[in-house]
C-alpha cells in the first residue's frame, strides 16, 4: 500500500504541497500517484517565472503506460523547477517526497488541500 507522508498537504489530483518558508511551497506528486502511473519516463514542468493557477493543468507526467496532467495545487509564480527530475524522471518514482520534488511556487493562494490523514483515508493509503 502506498505511503502518504504525514507532514504534507495533498490535492485531489495527487499533488503534494510542502510549506518551505513564508509563502514558498514545494510541490510534487504522491506515492499513490507514482504507484498508479508506473515508471515515469518524461515530465513536463511549468517554466520559472510563469504563473500557475490552482486546479488548472501546468504540466504533464508521462509513464511507460500513460500520460497524466499535472495540476497546480496552489496559485502563484513558479520560482524554481527541479531539473534533476527532468533529466532523470525515475527520481519521482524512487523518492516522490524527496529528490523527486517537481517545482516551487511563491503561493498567493491555495486550492482545496487535504491533510495527510484525509488524503490517506480517501486513497486507501497508509501514513
Amino acid at each position, binding site marked *: 500500500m502506498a505511503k502518504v507522508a504525514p507532514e504534507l498537504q495533498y490535492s485531489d489530483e495527487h499533488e503534494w504541497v510542502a510549506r518551505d518558508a513564508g509563502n514558498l511551497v514545494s510541490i510534487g506528486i504522491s506515492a499513490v500517484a507514482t504507484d498508479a502511473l508506473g515508471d515515469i*519516463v518524461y515530465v513536463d514542468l511549468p517554466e520559472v517565472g510563469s504563473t500557475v493557477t490552482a486546479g488548472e493543468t501546468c504540466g504533464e507526467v508521462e509513464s511507460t503506460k500513460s500520460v497524466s496532467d499535472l495540476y497546480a495545487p496552489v496559485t502563484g509564480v513558479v520560482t524554481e523547477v527541479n531539473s534533476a527530475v527532468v533529466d532523470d524522471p525515475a527520481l519521482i518514482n524512487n523518492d516522490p517526497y524527496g529528490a523527486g520534488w517537481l517545482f516551487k511556487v511563491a503561493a498567493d493562494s491555495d486550492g482545496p488541500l487535504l491533510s495527510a490523514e484525509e488524503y490517506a483515508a480517501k486513497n486507501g493509503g497508509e501514513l
Partner: protein
Amino acid sequence: MTENYTALYEEHKKLGASFTDFGGWQMPLKYSSELSEHHAVRKSAGLFDLSHMGEVWITGAGAGAFLDYALVGKLSAIAVGKAKYSLICAEDGGIIDDLIVYRRPSETEGEDKYLVVPNAGNASTVAAALAERAAGFDVKVEDVSSEMSLIAVQGPKAEDILLRLVPAEQHSLVTELKYYAAVEVPFTVDGTTAELLLARTGYTGEDGFEIFIENDGAPALWSEIVAVAGEGELTPAGLASRDSLRLEAGMPLYGNELSRDGDPFAAGLGPVVALSKEGDFVGRAALEAKKAAGAGATTGRKLVGLKGLGRRAGRSHYPVLKDGAVVGEVTSGQPSPTLGYPIALAYVDVEHAEIGAPLEVDLRGKREPFEVTALPFYKRSK
C-alpha cells in the same frame, strides 16, 4: 463480467504484484517496476503467468481438414511437433483472434491432434466458433482453457534455468527444440517427475519457452522455477512489461492492432492467409476480394512502425498527421525501454506508409515528429 483468477494468483500476491483486469482476468500488471522487468527479460530472464490464454484441443481423423476450413492458414501441413501462427476470421474477413496452433502426436491410429491457443478475452468466442465450424467434420473440439495454466520463461537465460528442472539425459529435448516447436519434457518438481508440454514460443522478441500444465500443478512449478534460478537471474514479469516487450518486437496485440473491423492484409499478416490452399475456408471470399482490391497495399491503411524523433510517446488512438491532415491512428505506443526513444504501431494511409516517411503524432494537442520505420523495432542478436 465476472473476474477470473489464475491458479497462480496467490503466488503473485506473495510476490507483491499489482493487478489489472485483462480479458476478464485479474492478472499481474507488474511486481515492482515494469521497466526493470522489461530489462530483465532482455538481459537475463523473466517469468510470466499466461494462464489467461485459452487452450482448445482438436482431435480426430478430420482435424487437419477442419482447421484448414476454420482458420486462414494451411494447418494440415504443419509437421507433428511444430507450431504455426494463424488467424480465425469471420465470413466478412474480420479477425476474430490470432492464434498459435501446435500439432501434436496422436495417441490414436488414423487421428490427428492439434492444440489451438487463443487470447484470453477471445478464448470462449474462439472455442464456440470452432465448435460451430466443426459441423460435418470428423473432429472433436474440446475447450480445456479453464483447466490449464501456461507459464512462460523468456530471455537469454531461459534455457539454462529450465534445464535445471529436467533430468540430464533429457536435456537435448530442450536444447534441440526449435523455435515454434513443442515437445513433451519430463520436469522434476518437488521430487516428482512429470511430462509437460514445452513450447519454444513467446511474445517478447527473446528466446524463450512456454510450459502448459494443469492448474493444480502450476503453483509448484512456478515456485520451483523461481527456486532454481540464481540471484537476479529470473524476474517475475507482469503484463506491463509483456506489452512493452511485444511492442519492441513488432508483434500485434489483439484489440489494439487486430480486430473484427480490421483485415489481415492491412495488419501485414497477408502471408498468414493461405489463399492458395485447396477448398473453402471461413472468410475466403471476403479475403480474396480484399486482396484483389489491394487492401494494405494500394488502398486503405496499413500497419507500420513509427519511431519518435522527440521524447514524447504516441498512445493508442492518437491521430497520425501529415501536413496537419489526419492520415492514420496509433494502435500501440510507448517509450521503448531498450531503444530509448518512443515507438508506436499505427495504421497509416498506404501512400504515407513507406519507410522513412516523415509524419507527426498529435499528442493531446501537441504535434511531435515521427517517421515510419521498419519492423521489428528490436531484434535480438543471435
